[in-house]
């Protein structure tokens, strides 16, 4: 057993005593009841289980939770899909997913939302040229598997958000 402390969606948790063999996915879903993060392949292949990890230097990345222990997240600050909406209002990306009907069964959707959110935050700090946008989105979402949709509407929804606020996400006049 190991004590863990972490911050999830802005709220601190811990110290909580957890088994060393408890996966982060089980910790979120079974221990904390946060079932927005899904379990699918169990092999870090589909990324339905991915959460956002926020580093102290201001960068963020997505991390699988199915093959990683809860203990390995001790001291970390993470965001799950439950934390994307603020004060009851869905994020721009969540609204775009709904508007584009980007999902079907919704199982992979939390992973796509988290990845899309990380992409938006990255572009806000380091905009790309419009000509590079399609590849940028494709590379960012690459690795997230979806059995239902064929991915197109996920891509379009993310692109829609970026183009709607192009001054923030794209290099000016390019």
């Amino acid at each position, binding site marked *: 057993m190991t004590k863990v402390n972490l911050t999830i969606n802005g709220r601190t948790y811990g110290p909580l005593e957890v088994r060393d*063999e408890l996966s982060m996915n089980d910790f979120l879903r079974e221990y904390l009841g946060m079932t927005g993060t899904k379990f699918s392949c169990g092999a870090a*292949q589909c990324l339905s289980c991915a959460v956002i990890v926020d580093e102290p230097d201001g960068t963020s990345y997505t991390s699988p939770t199915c093959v990683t222990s809860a203990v*390995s997240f001790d001291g970390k600050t993470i965001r799950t899909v439950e934390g994307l909406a603020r004060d009851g209002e869905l994020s721009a990306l969540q609204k775009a997913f709904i508007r584009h009907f980007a999902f079907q069964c919704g199982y992979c959707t939390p992973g796509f939302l988290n990845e899309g959110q990380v992409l938006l935050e990255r572009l806000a700090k380091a905009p790309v040229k419009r000509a590079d946008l399609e590849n940028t989105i494709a590379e960012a979402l690459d690795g997230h598997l979806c059995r239902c949709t064929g991915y197109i509407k996920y891509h379009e929804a993310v692109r829609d958000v970026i183009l709607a606020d192009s001054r923030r996400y794209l290099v000016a006049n390019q």
Partner: protein
Amino acid sequence: MKSELQLQLAVAVLAVATSMFTGYAVSQTVPQSLASPENFASIADTEARSAAMFTELGKVLTHPRCMNCHPAGDRPRQGDESRLHQPPVMRGADGHGLPAMRCSICHKHANFEPGRMPGHPEWHLAPREMAWEGKTVAEICAQLKDPARNGGRKVEELIHHIGEDTLVGWGWAPGAGRSPAPGTQKQAGALVEAWVKTGAACPAQ
């Protein structure tokens, strides 16, 4: 009659249990052994003895636990069958993965058995110049002795690298479902030391 049925039941249970244990034993990978430097004492010629010891060490160097992270390309391999790593991760600029998919995102400080995920604090690929995939033991030997391709090391430093480095040591404690490298890290270190002390000769092939 009742005792006959009881006997038949006991025999059946015993047969099932025996087959289960046998199957379990067979399913476990039998670890390969590694010869010690003393086993080569009968080779009188020093150079030949040195080369023979390196050939024995080659069993470790060419084992999947080592070879999988010394690939020729930019993708690691995994498993005893050395299939391409899934998910399809890449080396990146520093061998620790791409910016959005660092090795350490999945590979934490230690093996995580519930996820069958190997781990070490410094999980990464060996540099491109240390690729062993597709090479013969003789070619690997020449590469290990070349400072331009062995991280600038003198051969003496290989004794510590192979015999004591903890990431190398993971190869002997890889977790369930992966066969460990032959012998032990201590035995491999002893072979390297003996190889170095006998002139670090390379085998012909």
